């Protein structure tokens, strides 16, 4: 069919078709080159500064004069006073990420099961609540949230951060789970119920295993959200031992003498895990995004 179509069209095409095609390809390559430079410039700058010595940072170099991984060594060995608790802070970020994923998946899948599978009455109210939360910018709730957490005595406690991240990751989870859940036939639930399974057995033995792809997509989303979030972590964690890597990183920026090379090395060490996870689960993430709501 396509061959026939192509055969019909070919004679009608412009005589300079080949030339135009070549030109188009050249233009596309030029655009591609511009995109690569545009995309990589800040990342190149990050790597360049991280590989420079302190004096070279304050120079007009466009590439590192004498590249060395010394700054990374400083970061790994916590060899600078701002990096005193670096690994401790890294562990805090991981801890927050783990619990955010676990609780988001748990709470999100439970409520989606109840709304989508058990069809609880007025379930749409909960769906709307989630939609509303999804549309409220997180930063707009920061001030009351901060005061609330201080009142609860949860200042400088990583659990206050976990609460925030779960709050803002769950609505997305509910969307994706409900959308994905529609592809699982109800007959499976019914068959299990007739065989005498209780709702909680159906949830664990049928619902969760079949939802695995959606769980992976949402888990990745929640992990990256928690790992990348800054504002709440900055407001709620001020103690060096309770703070996370992004907060520590931003503290560098506000210090009088900024050791830019150490800062960029820290930034790279902090950025590598999410980038790796992102590329590992890219397909799933994109599928999730195109399935339901959209959030970056």
């Amino acid at each position, binding site marked *: 069919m396509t061959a026939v179509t192509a055969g019909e069209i070919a004679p009608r095409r412009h005589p300079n078709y080949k030339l135009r095609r070549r030109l188009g390809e050249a233009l596309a390559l030029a655009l591609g080159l511009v995109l690569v430079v545009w995309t990589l410039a800040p990342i190149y700058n990050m790597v360049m500064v991280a590989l420079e010595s302190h004096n070279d940072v304050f120079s007009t170099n466009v590439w590192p004069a004498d590249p060395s991984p010394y700054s990374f060594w400083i970061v790994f060995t916590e060899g600078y006073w701002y990096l005193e608790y670096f690994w401790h802070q890294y562990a805090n970020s991981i801890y927050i990420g783990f619990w955010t994923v676990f609780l988001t998946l748990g709470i999100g899948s*439970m409520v989606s099961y109840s709304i989508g599978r058990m069809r609880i009455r007025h379930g749409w109210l909960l769906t709307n609540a989630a939609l509303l939360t999804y549309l409220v910018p997180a930063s707009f709730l920061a001030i009351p*949230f901060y005061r609330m957490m201080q009142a609860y005595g949860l200042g400088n406690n990583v659990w206050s951060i976990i609460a925030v991240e779960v709050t803002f990751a769950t609505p997305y989870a509910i969307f994706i789970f409900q959308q994905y859940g529609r592809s699982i036939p109800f007959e499976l639930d019914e068959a299990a119920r007739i065989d005498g399974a209780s709702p909680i057995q159906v949830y664990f033995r049928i619902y969760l295993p079949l939802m695995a792809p959606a769980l992976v997509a949402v888990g990745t989303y929640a992990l990256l959200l928690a*790992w990348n979030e800054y504002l709440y972590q900055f407001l709620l964690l001020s103690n060096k031992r309770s703070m996370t890597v992004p907060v520590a990183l931003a503290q560098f920026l506000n210090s009088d003498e900024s050791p830019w090379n150490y800062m960029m090395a820290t930034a790279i060490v902090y950025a590598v895990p999410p980038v790796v996870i992102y590329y590992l689960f890219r397909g799933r993430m994109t599928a999730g995004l195109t399935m339901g709501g959209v959030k970056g």
Partner: protein
Amino acid sequence: MASVSVIEAGRVAPRRASVLRKLRGGLQGSEYAWAIAFCIPYIGVFIAFVVFPVFYGLWLGHQPSLYVELFNDPIYQQTVVNTILYLVIGVNVKMFLALLLSGFFMRRGWWVKGLLMIYVLPWAVPALPTFISIHWMLNTQWGLINNVLWDAFGIDGPGWLDTSRWLALGSVIVTYIWKNMPFWTVILLAGRMAIPQELYEAAEVDGATGIRRFVHVSLPLLANLYLVCTLLSTIFTLGDFNTAYFISGGGPALSTHVLATLGIRDAFEIARPQLGVAAVLSALPLMIPLVMLLMHKLRTSEVQL
């Protein structure tokens, strides 16, 4: 007679049961309890961390005198202008470029696929490291951009962040586009891929290629998605704290704050939480219609991307 009453009694009982069942959405006894139990964690989170802060925030910012003070503050007036420029220019330029680039990434060929992998990096890398890197790139004396300008053209680059409000705000907007364009490109790319190939083939038979194909086939089919994405992006951008905070930090002379950063500054740097909440709440006249429109759009069309 007796048999009739038995029948009637027999009729009433199931009807009452069915009313009860209807109330419970067709669930019975223990099932209903389970269904509620499964919702309780989310209801708890929603009430404790969404409803409560929202009402607490409304209460904190309820005094009209706060708004009088805000509207008379020149920094706040500048901030409103900045926020509008940030939303109008940032969101629209980004979405339009994303729409065009999504078409570019529909091209066949291995290098386009490889390019896409590189192109999505700004989305994959956490915001903070790249923003700090861009902040340093824009340094007047030692930044990469001015170094390149000097090495390549012998030009002394301007002080991007510390001399002019417009240069600094422009830097914030360009950084914002750099960071967010890949995400929306991928969304629009998925939207384009969902368009059946037959439509393009039919259009080609009718002689529509290039721009005409875009205007008459792609655009009408992408219009709804594009609109929803733009609205969503506007709301997310309204709440964007990191970009302005890390690129310009509100400087020079507090002239490039946006509402999200000004609220935090008022609340924590000058320790007036009520004023900070009022600054944020002053965005409600824009937010409420946007949220209502989006709730409607997302619910009805379910944005099949």
